[in-house]
């Protein structure tokens, strides 16, 4: 990277560490990215799922057997949280892109709303996956 001044410039993610106090806004922002990365891997699981379905009853039964193991359920739960959070926070981003809700009070209200709804939904999903006998 060319650097005309010759000075050492801070490189991203310099914000993480001792320089900035953690705030709801910045924490939700990095969570949004983290969830996006996890969901990219999640989409590969979706592809695996569809391929197993196309491969026939035996392959599909095998896939569902792996998915319904404890580790499979934990993965589904993690992906579920990421999907709901990224979806809700993504809508928040789209409103910002339209220039709406950018003031600090609204940003905090929408931020808490996204966090609370995501956690409640994840708790409901956990109940479905682990206590009610499991959907998968």
């Amino acid at each position, binding site marked *: 990277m060319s650097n005309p001044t010759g000075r050492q410039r801070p490189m991203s993610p310099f914000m993480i560490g001792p320089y900035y106090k953690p705030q709801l806004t910045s924490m939700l922002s990095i969570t949004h990215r983290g969830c996006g*990365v996890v969901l990219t891997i999640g989409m590969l699981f979706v592809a695996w799922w569809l391929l197993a379905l196309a491969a026939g009853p035996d392959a599909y039964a095998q896939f569902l057997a792996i998915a319904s193991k404890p580790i499979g359920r934990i993965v589904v739960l993690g992906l579920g949280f990421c999907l709901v959070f990224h979806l809700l926070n993504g809508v928040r981003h789209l409103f910002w892109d339209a220039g709406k809700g950018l003031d600090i009070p609204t940003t905090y209200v929408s931020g808490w709303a996204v966090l609370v709804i995501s956690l409640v939904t994840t708790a409901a999903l956990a109940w479905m996956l682990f206590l009610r006998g499991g959907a998968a």
Partner: protein
Amino acid sequence: MSLRTPLGRVRGLGTAREGVHHWVAQRVTAVALVPLTIWFLWSALRTLVLGYAEAHAFVAQPMNAVLLGAFVICAFHHAHLGMQVVVEDYIHTRWLELTLILTFKFTCFLAAAASLLAIVRDRKSVV
């Protein structure tokens, strides 16, 4: 009327020399994914976990196959655009940056192609 020269305007596009299309495509796929993801969560996910017969019958429905295909295309498109931004922001070694971006793009493209083929195969095998 602008007093800037055409060269100045081109240079003004930034050091990456492009980006508007990337930005817009990420938003367009995001808008499309809002209803598609809600549909996927409520209808596809619920049916697909039931078992082979139910899942097979679900994907065999033309409307479901189309929506599932649209979801897969939009999600993988959105995924490779997003991964590109993440890599560009945090990886400061040029060769590694480029290698990772291309790896994610190729993986997303291949997985999307495989998913679409799987949907079509599943739909055909019912007839």
